């Protein structure tokens, strides 16, 4: 087999920068997600989850476990959101978007950016709901920052899982949904074991919060999580090479 050739990029016209083309395509995809009303299919279950999770306010001293639990539990909904956003665009439009934005890699990146932006919004809603409606006492600054970090990681985890189960990768809706749910459960189960470092260590986040060591463990657990998320996003980008 010959090596894959470098091909000339299909760059946008005139003096437009690649960045503004990327941002315009990202905005196009978010607009499609909102205008199609698919966004509510993820937002409403998140509200239901938060209403149940924070039905009673967490007692003082339990701020870290409460925020961590909600950051973990919202991940499948964020994955659903990312998958739904990426699947809003018809397959042929994805091809047109690639020619419009100049390269396929920019089209892939714009989809991830759009999904991550929406997930950041949902993660922020989750965090603020917890802070103002779910806790008896406001957390300390260090716990607050750990909570912010975990919610950003949750948004990124949801984006990655959603991208890997989107239609471009898994055309069958049934297999896609099963992969999304089982992927989340696999992360939960594996990270309960001594092999927690083999995945995004979701259960390890919760264990650290429960034992009062979240603040000290966040750098290590965050770095480990980022490493796996980077691997997941790299896999998605690699798979998309042959799945336009």
């Amino acid at each position, binding site marked *: 087999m010959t090596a894959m050739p470098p091909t000339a990029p299909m760059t946008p016209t005139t003096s437009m920068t690649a960045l503004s083309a990327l941002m315009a395509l990202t905005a196009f995809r978010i607009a499609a997600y909102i205008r199609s009303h698919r966004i509510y299919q993820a937002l409403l279950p998140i509200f239901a989850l938060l209403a149940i999770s924070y039905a009673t306010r967490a007692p003082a001293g339990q701020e870290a476990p409460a925020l961590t639990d909600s950051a973990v539990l919202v991940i499948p909904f964020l994955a659903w959101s990312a998958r739904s956003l990426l699947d809003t665009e018809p397959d042929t439009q994805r091809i047109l978007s690639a*020619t419009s934005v100049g390269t396929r890699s920019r089209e892939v990146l714009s989809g991830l950016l759009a999904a991550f932006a929406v997930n950041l919004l949902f993660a922020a809603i989750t965090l603020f709901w917890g802070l103002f409606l779910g806790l008896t006492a406001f957390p300390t600054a260090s716990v607050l920052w750990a909570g912010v970090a975990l919610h950003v990681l949750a948004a990124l985890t949801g984006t990655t899982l959603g991208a890997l189960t989107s239609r471009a990768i898994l055309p069958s809706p049934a297999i896609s949904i099963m992969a999304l749910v089982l992927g989340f459960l696999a992360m939960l189960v594996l990270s309960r074991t001594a092999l927690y470092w083999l995945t995004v260590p979701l259960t390890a986040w919760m264990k650290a919060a429960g034992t009062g060591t979240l603040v000290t463990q966040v750098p290590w657990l965050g770095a480990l999580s980022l490493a796996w998320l980077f691997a997941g996003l790299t896999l998605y980008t690699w798979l998309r090479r042959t799945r336009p």
Partner: protein
Amino acid sequence: MRLSNVSFAYRRRAPAVLRDVDADLAPGDVIEVVGANGAGKSTLLRLLAGITRPTHGTVTDRPRVVGFAPDRFPVDQPFTVTQYLTHISRIRGNPAWRPWATRLGLDDLLDVRLAELSKGSAHKVGLVQALMPDPGLLILDEPFAGLDADTRAQLPAIITAARTRGAIVILSDHQGGLDDLPSVRHWSLHGGHLKESAPSATSEPSGPPTKVVHVTVPATEVDAFLTRMRQAGYEAQEAEEGQP
């Protein structure tokens, strides 16, 4: 632009759709690709556009700006014509799209949702998004299919203008829409192999003058009618739905 030993298969062990395709394309070339259904025309067009990577071989020196009009425009998107084309224009660097919409007869449909467009009108939206950036490589998949007579008459002039400014124009066509255009290169695909026949040197027919006659026959008699006409020495083909 050059294709060198380009082959493509959809899966690793699947038979190749295209085999060892070699071709040179120069600025100003207009190329008509013909072949039976499933011969690989759309695959070849996507390879040329840079949307699909060849399994083997290289595509080099592709023009910077590519316009691609699909054979079926994806209407399942939550936008009106104006909203959609405005988004695409932003991605493309804000080239003017309204003159193209006017030229192709879309002015009365600008506020109509994409999902409510007829097949021909949706096809026009696909053409406008491809034409708006004045691409250096213009790829049109079955551009004449489903278009009304006025728009069909516009396309050869649009293609000639693109050629005049140095663009490469490649299209697949079953409609004979370029019969009056001079110096069109003809590629035919058969069994995955690309063959080029001599270009038409002039728009003047080599034999006696001809005219196109439209005849309406009962649907059940179409095949027999076409057979009789061909046996009598005439070129005869069934018109697409919506085409005069």
